[in-house]
């Protein structure tokens, strides 16, 4: 039975999503508990999947019983299982932290909101597990379509951002699909394992090179890689406060994971006999994105926008690690990806709370409000320490492995890029912290604003997770190293 775990992980949010219109038909208030239950179940199942995979190796799941090259296959390896655990936990906490406020804010949109949120989560799960290129496209679209709807769910200005996101996202998906069709034309198969056997002989074919370029551009838009990031800052800034943590922490990260998977699983980018320049390109693009993203973040007044640009820089850092083409870099990049998801989630939850409860959306507003309660300050400081990359948080160890891999490769430009990014990140966080802490002394002594239990729970768990990922970083990295060792590095 444990071989079927990946499908159960997928079905629990998906089933809840498709039942949502019926559940909320008479009483929309029922949607929230059902959605939370589904995500909680999904978390437990994904932990079970991870346990099973760590004990018995990866699960290859052939749908309908058709053998892989002809049928559809899901591959649940260690990386996928860890990612799904992170995904389900973050989705649960994102939904939990807002409390019942979303229901009253959204009004008649409550039912579709919960249905679409769960569809987004199941789409992302599908991308993580998918074992062939076309299914990555299908789930990419499911997740993206839900993303557009979620950005625009509050109406008004958000609709413009959602429309922009829709145009850019559809362009990205089309580019990706075009790339997939080129691959199919050259090889006659879409299954990743099957492709991996046929691609090495075809790497000089123009169809494969063209397809690869299209895929990279398409997924580059999806992962908001500088300079293809145009849609992201607006979408994150205008999205409702309950949605932007989910988008910021998961959507771009999962697209990045899909690209890493294609590079290493299909193209065998790590092995020395394939002279693939794209790996070299990756760290250059990543370094540029990291430095430029942090610089742009420094100039932003709006808090959400500032951290959205910060997120762009962190995607760049992941690619710097992955682009070194050695095992340390790949494991470090993946570890940083996981950390970044948790950090962004906490950061956007806190920014959303500060905006909603204190009305502070920009840097100047921060100086005017009263000192937020210790829960928020502590969470913010933990997130800041991790984003900057100081021990004992996960962010430090992620950067550590990325820098190590660059030194291993004697790639000092990449080392410099990571260090400059660190300094810039410190600069833009110091500005925020300085305003936030100084504001408390001069601000008006307004009425005490209480922090609800579920908010304390989410920020507490996420802060603990950031520190925990740091303290137990060697274990997680060991698992990732073991997982990446099969990729021929």
């Amino acid at each position, binding site marked *: 039975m444990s071989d*079927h775990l990946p499908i159960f992980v997928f079905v629990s949010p998906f089933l809840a999503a*498709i*039942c949502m219109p*019926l559940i909320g038909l008479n009483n929309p208030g029922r949607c929230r508990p059902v959605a939370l239950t589904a995500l909680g179940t999904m978390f437990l199942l994904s932990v079970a999947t991870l346990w099973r995979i760590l004990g018995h190796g990866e699960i290859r*799941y052939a*749908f*309908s019983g058709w053998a892989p090259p002809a049928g559809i296959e899901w591959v649940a390896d260690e990386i996928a299982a860890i990612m799904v655990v992170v995904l389900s936990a973050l989705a649960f906490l994102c939904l939990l932290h807002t409390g019942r406020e979303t229901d009253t804010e959204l009004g008649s949109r409550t039912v579709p909101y919960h249905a679409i949120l769960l569809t987004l989560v199941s789409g992302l799960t599908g991308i993580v597990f998918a074992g062939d290129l076309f299914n990555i496209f299908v789930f990419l679209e499911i997740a993206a379509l839900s993303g557009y709807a979620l950005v625009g769910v509050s109406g008004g200005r958000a609709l413009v951002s959602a429309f922009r996101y829709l145009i850019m996202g559809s362009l990205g998906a089309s580019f990706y699909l075009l790339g997939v069709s080129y691959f199919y034309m050259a090889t006659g198969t879409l299954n990743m394992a099957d492709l991996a056997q046929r691609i090495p002989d075809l790497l000089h074919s123009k169809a494969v090179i063209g397809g690869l370029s299209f895929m990279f551009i398409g997924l580059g838009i999806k992962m908001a890689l500088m300079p293809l990031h145009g849609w992201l800052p607006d979408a994150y800034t205008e999205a409702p406060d309950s949605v932007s943590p989910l988008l910021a922490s998961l959507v771009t990260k999962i697209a990045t994971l899909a690209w890493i998977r294609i590079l290493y699983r299909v193209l065998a980018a790590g092995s020395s006999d394939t002279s693939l320049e794209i790996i070299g390109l990756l760290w250059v693009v990543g370094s540029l994105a990291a430095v430029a993203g942090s610089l742009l973040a420094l100039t932003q007044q709006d808090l959400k926008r500032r951290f959205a640009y910060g997120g762009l820089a962190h995607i760049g850092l992941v690619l710097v690690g992955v682009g070194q083409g050695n095992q340390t870099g790949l494991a470090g990049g993946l570890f940083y990806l996981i950390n970044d998801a948790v950090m962004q989630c906490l950061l956007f939850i806190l920014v959303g709370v500060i905006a909603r409860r204190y009305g502070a959306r920009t840097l100047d507003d921060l100086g005017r409000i009263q000192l937020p309660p210790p829960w928020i300050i502590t969470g913010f400081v933990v997130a800041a320490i991790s984003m900057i990359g100081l021990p004992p948080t996960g962010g430090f160890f992620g950067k550590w492995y990325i820098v190590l891999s660059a030194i291993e490769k004697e790639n000092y430009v990449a080392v410099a890029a990571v260090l400059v990014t660190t300094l810039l990140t410190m600069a833009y966080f110091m500005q925020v912290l300085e305003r936030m802490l100084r504001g408390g002394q001069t601000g008006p002594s307004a009425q005490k604003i209480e922090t609800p239990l579920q908010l304390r729970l989410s920020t507490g768990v996420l802060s603990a997770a950031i520190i925990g990922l740091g303290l137990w970083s060697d274990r997680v990295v060991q698992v990732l190293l073991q997982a990446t060792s099969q990729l021929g590095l």
Partner: protein
Amino acid sequence: MIESRHDSVIVRHLGGGLIPLVQIFALYILFFGQHGPGGGFVGGVMMGTSFILGILVFGPTDRSTVVAKRVAEADGVGLIIFAAVGGLCLIGGGQFLNYAELEIPGLAAPSRRYLGILLTQIGVAVDIAVTAVSIVFSLSVVSGNGDSHV
């Protein structure tokens, strides 16, 4: 905006005769999909079209289009059928959607596959029809402040 029934008595009478025929043909296409061209998607589109035709001819408030309205509320039913077939296959010990293991007692493997594909097609058809109808409702039959059909 569709507000009331069609003005012309000819359209109304012809529509009344045509819609059931379209629906029967849609069902035929759906079940014939097992043996030849056709199947859930096409059958579902035709079924949806017949409902849309009903709304255009008799107006969204007519008693005969009540079904179409209720249908639009049951967005996920087709997918639920689909997931249920997949789940029955899991219970039978096979992979998700492995029809050979469809857990329905008293059936041999070939008829299980037949039934499995048919049920999945019905699920697809319901979903397509509902989607078509709900697109029409959300684009043209806007009621109140436009908030109800988001």
